[in-house]
């Protein structure tokens, strides 16, 4: 019962509290309890995937549960996980297929049958999983063909449930890598659906048809008549689905008919969502396939007038852009524009017609820009019309602003107009400040026609204007101000934060002292500035707002600026003989310089400060990384460790000399056997093959270091001895690793031997990288001609992936191209590809890529490929697994800084974890975290400790630890919400391991 409740609506914060209880229930003897526990975990996974990361192997156990119900429940979790990333679960395809085969074959208990169909829900779930797995993957898809065929065959009883399975099957068949035989059968199924007299099936058939239409348009042709019938179906839902189908098959020839049908439907329908959706589609079709101008304009008019204000803002924007930018043919453009203007004028003729606001806005813009193209209409007439529109009550003030802008534009092209004068008079006293400002501007502009023409050139809406957004021309002013002792400007949120932290600082004991004083001083200076500046901002906000609106559609930013009250006056001086673009910038310099416009000053300061901040951050990130070397965690390799390293190395050499006397190779090989046996964990891991190779390596290496230091010496000796024969470089590298005690990767000995005997071309890192901490060089993939190796180098400011390409042939390889695919989570600095001009025979080339983590994940895959030309074009795919820890670096800071930062961060995550017996003291726990996770210990006070690290390039994460009664309370804070969760997971992992 409690489990049922848990799985209903459950707050995210409480999950850690109940999670262990539910985990226990997974082992319960009753299957119903186990099943419910799995369901509850599924719910947790949906709410907070990060928090259940560590029990993925338990899901696997649930999948193999002897009770089919539990297994079915676990499928929900898998479906969700596979939806997120299908690549990680390809290996499970086989088992899913096997399960489905059993289900279809009726091997389940009779309880699961539903109307004599075996476990339909289970089948559908499995089909969906297979669909996700097999998408675009021929190899995985191949595994499924047989079982899909089987389920199609079995589902032949006439009952809803079999139809459900069939439709799912069909979808799966069309999604996975195609197989002609299955496609044919699926097509037959769809046909059956569409022709079925049952309306539900017909609907589904149409849906399926819509789904497959892009793969197989012929299928639609076969069912033409049915589709036509469905178009006139009394049920609007069926009709809509049919339209959806038609939308997919639209082309240049049938567009008119289809759009007409859609418009008809649009007029009937009342539902908001449907209208928005449909309007978008019609507009898209009209833009794509419009056969002629008249039709296009008419259709768009219909769309605007029927869709009303529900239409998405993109549609008018796109429409206007199309008009403004035009097509290739200038004449055609003009025709289109003329037609548009004429049609709008005709529409405006009708006095009491109510048009939606957006439509009016579009109309007014078009009239403003292009009305002069129509020579036979007097601008005066247009102006009068606009004037009458302005008086109407249903027109919102936003639209009025649009219309005013139009009036201004038209006025600039006419000599003297009564209507304009009237408008000016009427709106100069308007209550609406915006309108009043416009009227005022218009009045002033009318006084100087020359300037007006300059400002509003004809048909310039497409020429982009450069606006100096950072207002750099004000830098001098700011510098001067600062020089006179003015306080630097702080953005609003910063001020607020400071205020907040100041208040909090009083009851935040350990970090208080030096921090409070620094804040109080900055807080005061921060508060002074805004009061003085906020006065003038009111009007500017207004104009900024309207200006903003325009930017997206009209690209008139520059013009807008000049219209500002202060803006256009000084421009008279510099009016002549200047291009527009520089004018924009220079004149606003003048104006702000002269008038000392406070809002402008403010913007500028924002800009300069934020720039400063950025610089500082960068500086900090570059400065502090390398210094995080308090107690042995050193990325750079400190002097201490270096000396130690040398000692050890000399020893190695000694022993190795003595060993070389005997038949070294044999004895080494013989010795690896027992070594392996002493570490069963190691073996288990590789057997399970759940983890990637990398992870395995790190696991085993940490085991080695932690548990049997005694073993480590001889092993590293032997190994390095073996390697000594192969290459001198390798030796120093691996022993260097053994000593630096941060991350030691020791490949399984057998793999080492293998690679040693097979490939003579083993790459090595260049010296400058050798000094940095780096991983073992692992082979990514190989073909007859090439072998790819990878080495991760953890530099201070990024992860450096070094890819070695070794040419195994005896010929020179030309134009070898290495490309990394774009990955969701990672960002490759500079370009993702690299071209090797030539790789000499039997030699190794390398390329280096700096990688950052863009989106946080505990582990992600970066895939790529190598192309090379050897007889024929060959492509070699590879993938690299990167974990979060590759991107975590210690962050050096003082306790005070920590306190300050701590208060400014908002995302926090708390969790208690049990401490194992081997490290029940705080210091032991901290050391583990420091060594394994590269966290920097900032300070330890009593039973509390604070640590800091950062995710590259510069996302800090702070950790506060406290021990009490064998529990370790972890408290993370970071500006990034996902980072604490992921780090917590890592912490749990390392604490469990140790």
């Amino acid at each position, binding site marked *: 019962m409690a489990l049922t409740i848990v799985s209903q609506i459950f707050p995210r914060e409480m999950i850690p509290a109940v999670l262990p209880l539910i985990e226990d229930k997974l082992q319960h003897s009753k299957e119903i309890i186990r*099943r419910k526990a799995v369901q509850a975990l599924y719910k947790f996974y949906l709410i907070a995937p990060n928090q259940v990361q560590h029990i993925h192997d338990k899901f696997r156990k649930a999948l193999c549960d002897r009770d089919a119900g539990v297994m079915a*429940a676990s499928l929900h979790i898998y479906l969700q996980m596979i939806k997120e990333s299908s690549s990680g679960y390809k290996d499970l395809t086989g088992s899913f297929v096997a399960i489905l085969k059993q289900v279809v074959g009726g091997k389940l208990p009779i*309880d699961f049958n539903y109307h004599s169909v075996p476990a*339909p*829900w289970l089948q559908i779930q499995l089909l969906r999983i297979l669909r996700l797995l097999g998408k675009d993957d021929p190899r995985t898809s191949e595994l499924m063909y047989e079982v899909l065929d089987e389920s199609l065959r079995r589902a032949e009883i006439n009952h*809803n449930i079999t139809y459900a399975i069939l439709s*799912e099957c069909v979808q799966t068949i069309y999604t996975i890598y195609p197989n002609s035989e299955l496609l044919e059968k699926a097509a037959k199924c769809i046909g059956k659906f569409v022709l079925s007299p049952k309306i539900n099936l017909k609907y589904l058939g149409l849906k399926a048809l819509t789904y497959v239409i892009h793969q197989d348009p012929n299928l639609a042709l076969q069912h033409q008549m049915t589709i036509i019938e469905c178009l006139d179906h009394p049920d609007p*839902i069926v009709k809509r689905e049919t339209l959806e189908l038609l939308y997919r098959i639209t082309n240049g020839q049938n567009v008119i008919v289809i759009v007409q049908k859609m418009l008809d439907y649009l007029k009937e329908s009342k539902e908001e*969502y449907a209208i928005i959706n449909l309007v978008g589609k019609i507009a898209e079709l009209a833009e794509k396939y419009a056969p002629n101008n008249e039709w296009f304009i008419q259709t768009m008019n219909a769309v605007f007038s029927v869709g009303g204000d529900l239409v998405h803002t993109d549609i008018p924007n796109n429409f206007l852009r199309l008009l403004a930018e035009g097509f290739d043919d200038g004449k055609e453009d003009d025709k289109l524009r003329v037609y548009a203007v004429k049609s709008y004028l005709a529409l405006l003729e009708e006095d009491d017609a109510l048009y939606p606001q957006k439509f009016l806005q579009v109309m007014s813009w078009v009239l403003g820009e292009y009305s002069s193209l129509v020579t036979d209409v007097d601008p005066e007439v247009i102006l009068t019309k606009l004037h009458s529109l302005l008086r109407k009550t249903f027109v919102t003030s936003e639209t009025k602003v649009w219309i005013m802008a139009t009036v201004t534009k038209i006025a600039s092209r006419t000599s003297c107009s009564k209507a304009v004068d009237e408008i000016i008079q009427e709106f100069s006293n308007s209550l609406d400040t915006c309108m009043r400002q416009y009227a005022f501007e218009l009045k002033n502009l009318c006084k100087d026609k020359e300037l007006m023409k300059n400002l509003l050139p004809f048909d310039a809406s497409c020429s982009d204007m450069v606006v100096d957004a950072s207002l750099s021309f004000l830098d001098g002013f700011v510098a001067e101000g600062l020089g006179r002792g003015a306080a630097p400007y702080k953005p609003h949120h910063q001020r607020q934060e400071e205020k907040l932290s100041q208040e909090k600082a009083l009851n935040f004991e350990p970090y208080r002292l030096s921090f409070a004083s620094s804040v109080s001083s900055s807080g005061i200076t921060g508060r002074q500035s805004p009061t003085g500046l906020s006065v003038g901002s009111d009007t500017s906000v207004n104009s900024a707002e309207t200006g903003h609106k325009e930017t997206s559609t009209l690209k008139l930013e520059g013009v807008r600026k000049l219209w500002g009250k202060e803006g256009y006056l000084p421009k008279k001086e510099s009016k002549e003989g200047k291009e527009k673009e520089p004018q924009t910038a220079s004149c606003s310099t003048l104006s702000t310089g002269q008038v000392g416009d406070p809002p402008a000053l403010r913007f500028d300061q924002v800009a300069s400060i934020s720039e400063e901040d950025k610089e500082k951050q960068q500086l900090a990130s570059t400065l502090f990384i390398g210094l995080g070397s308090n107690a042995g965690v050193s990325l750079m390799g400190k002097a201490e460790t270096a000396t130690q390293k040398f000692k050890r190395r000399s020893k190695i050499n000694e022993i190795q000399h003595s060993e070389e006397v005997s038949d070294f190779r044999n004895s080494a090989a013989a010795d690896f056997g027992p070594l392996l046996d002493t570490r069963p964990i190691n073996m288990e891991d590789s057997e399970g093959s759940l983890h990637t190779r990398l992870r395995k390596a790190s696991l085993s290496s940490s085991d080695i270091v932690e548990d049997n230091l005694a073993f480590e010496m001889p092993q590293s000796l032997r190994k390095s001895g073996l390697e000594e024969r192969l290459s001198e470089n390798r030796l120093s590298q691996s022993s260097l690793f053994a000593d630096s005690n941060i991350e030691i990767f020791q490949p399984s000995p057998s793999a080492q031997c293998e690679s040693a005997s097979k490939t003579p071309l083993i790459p090595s890192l260049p010296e400058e990288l050798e000094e940095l901490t780096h991983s073992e060089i692992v082979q990514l993939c190989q073909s007859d001609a090439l072998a790819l190796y990878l080495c991760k180098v953890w530099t201070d400011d990024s992860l450096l992936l070094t890819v070695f390409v070794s040419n195994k042939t005896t010929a020179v390889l030309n134009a070898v191209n290495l490309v990394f695919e774009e990955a969701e989570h990672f960002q490759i600095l500079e370009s993702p590809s690299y071209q090797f001009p030539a790789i000499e025979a039997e030699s190794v080339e390398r390329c280096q890529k700096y990688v950052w983590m863009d989106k946080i994940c505990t582990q992600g895959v970066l895939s790529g490929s190598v192309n090379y030309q050897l007889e024929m074009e060959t492509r070699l795919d590879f993938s690299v697994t990167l974990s979060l820890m590759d991107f975590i670096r210690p962050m050096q800071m003082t306790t005070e800084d920590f306190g300050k930062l701590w208060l400014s961060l908002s995302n926090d995550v708390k969790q208690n974890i049990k401490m194992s017996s081997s490290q029940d003291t705080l210091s032991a726990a901290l050391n583990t975290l420091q060594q394994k996770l590269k966290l920097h210990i900032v300070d330890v006070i009593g039973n509390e400790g604070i640590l800091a690290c950062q995710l590259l390039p510069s996302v800090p994460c702070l950790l506060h630890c406290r021990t009490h009664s064998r529990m370790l309370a972890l408290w993370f804070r970071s500006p990034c919400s996902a980072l604490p969760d992921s780090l917590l997971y890592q912490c749990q992992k390392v604490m469990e391991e140790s």
Partner: protein
Amino acid sequence: MRFMLLFSRQGKLRLQKWFLATADRDKKKLVRELMQVVLARKPKMCSFLEWRDLKVVYKRYASLYFCCAIEGQDNELITLELIHRYVELLDKYFGSVCELDIIFNFEKAYFILDEFVMGGEIQDTSKKSVLKAIEQADLLQEEDESPRSVLEEMGLA
């Protein structure tokens, strides 16, 4: 599945189950609008709806509408069968179920639904095992209740 609703032909809500946290006000709005849409449909129309960003599957049994909202990826037909199975379960438990049964024993109807669907996914497809679970729960409830009545009697005595 997002939510499941049971309402009568007169537009009275009989049972509601939400599988996604939703604010009360939104719930009321959704229910009201959805009821209007569904009730307006004629009996011969198809039982699937695309409504807002959801798919709605409904079926009418006598005067009761059973209505499920599912996400875009889900299978409509199987949801229809889910409704049917739920009705079968109710039928079996109450013995030819009618609207009154659900009105007066709404907590039982909720129990059955909870055993059948959990967290928006179908949990147990077997009629027998669901009913067994319900029976057990009923037994438990009775056991709970009986000692209390004894105590009460003693108190009275």
